[in-house]
């Protein structure tokens, strides 16, 4: 084994590991369930590993991995047909461990709303709005035009607003801490 190969392997593994939390969050967003998401991530890791040679070092590994995971997700869905979405018990469990941390944001409601979006809209808003991809990168990952991604993101936003009943700024009051400061500032 050549030194260079060894070094490439190390870099590949390091970059793969660094991308995993983000990749996994994308999988949870797509499937709506932790158990299914982790199976999907596992399949993606194996695919990526087997196709190491086809990855061009120095290019965007994250985009490459997301593309593999996305393709895997849709091909599995086609094979199995869409199973009835069960509420993600595992997800509830994990998020109820620290209710104080998540209580204010009600992430359960958000997850449910996200689940109601059509797949193409959901992946678009997640890639651009949370996973940290530019519109162009998201378009490449989804194999569609940049304009298509933009309109999907925009439709996803409107639909989420409807679903969550977010009507305006009033839904997001200031943090209790901020309110206290405001009170102190104007109280005297």
């Amino acid at each position, binding site marked *: *084994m050549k030194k260079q190969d060894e070094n490439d*392997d190390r870099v590949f*593994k390091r970059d*793969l*590991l660094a991308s*995993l*939390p*983000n990749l*996994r*969050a994308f999988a*949870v*967003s797509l499937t709506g369930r932790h158990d299914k998401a*982790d199976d999907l*991530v*596992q399949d993606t*890791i*194996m695919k990526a*590993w087997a196709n190491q040679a086809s990855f061009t070092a120095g290019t965007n590994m994250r985009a490459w991995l997301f593309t593999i995971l996305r393709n895997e997700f849709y091909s599995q869905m086609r094979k199995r047909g869409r199973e009835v979405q069960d509420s993600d018990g595992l997800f509830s469990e*994990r*998020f109820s461990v620290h209710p104080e941390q*998540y209580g204010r*944001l009600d*992430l359960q409601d*958000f*997850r449910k709303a*996200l689940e109601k979006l059509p797949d193409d809209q959901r992946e678009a*808003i*997640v890639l*651009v*709005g*949370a*996973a*940290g991809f530019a519109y162009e990168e998201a378009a490449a990952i989804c194999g569609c035009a940049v304009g298509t991604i*933009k309109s999907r993101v*925009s439709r996803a*936003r409107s639909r*989420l*607003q409807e679903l*969550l009943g*977010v*009507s*305006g*700024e009033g*839904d*997001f009051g200031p943090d209790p801490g901020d309110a206290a400061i405001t009170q102190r500032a104007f109280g005297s």
Partner: protein
Amino acid sequence: MSEENRKKNEMNTAHPQEIKPGSMPPNASISRKLREFYNAVQEEGIPDRFLDLLERLEQAEKNAKSVNVK
């Protein structure tokens, strides 16, 4: 992290031409909720099963290579 912040700002201010006056705050809060949701999953870290899997893949590759050399 600064890259992420840049994206966050982009998300809130992207293509203003598509946004009607007054619809900006709800969009911003949707974006924020989405990121909170996503970050909560990211912060769970990497489950051991994936670390184990990578170890096994790496080991299998090493074994295969040493066999090839012989």
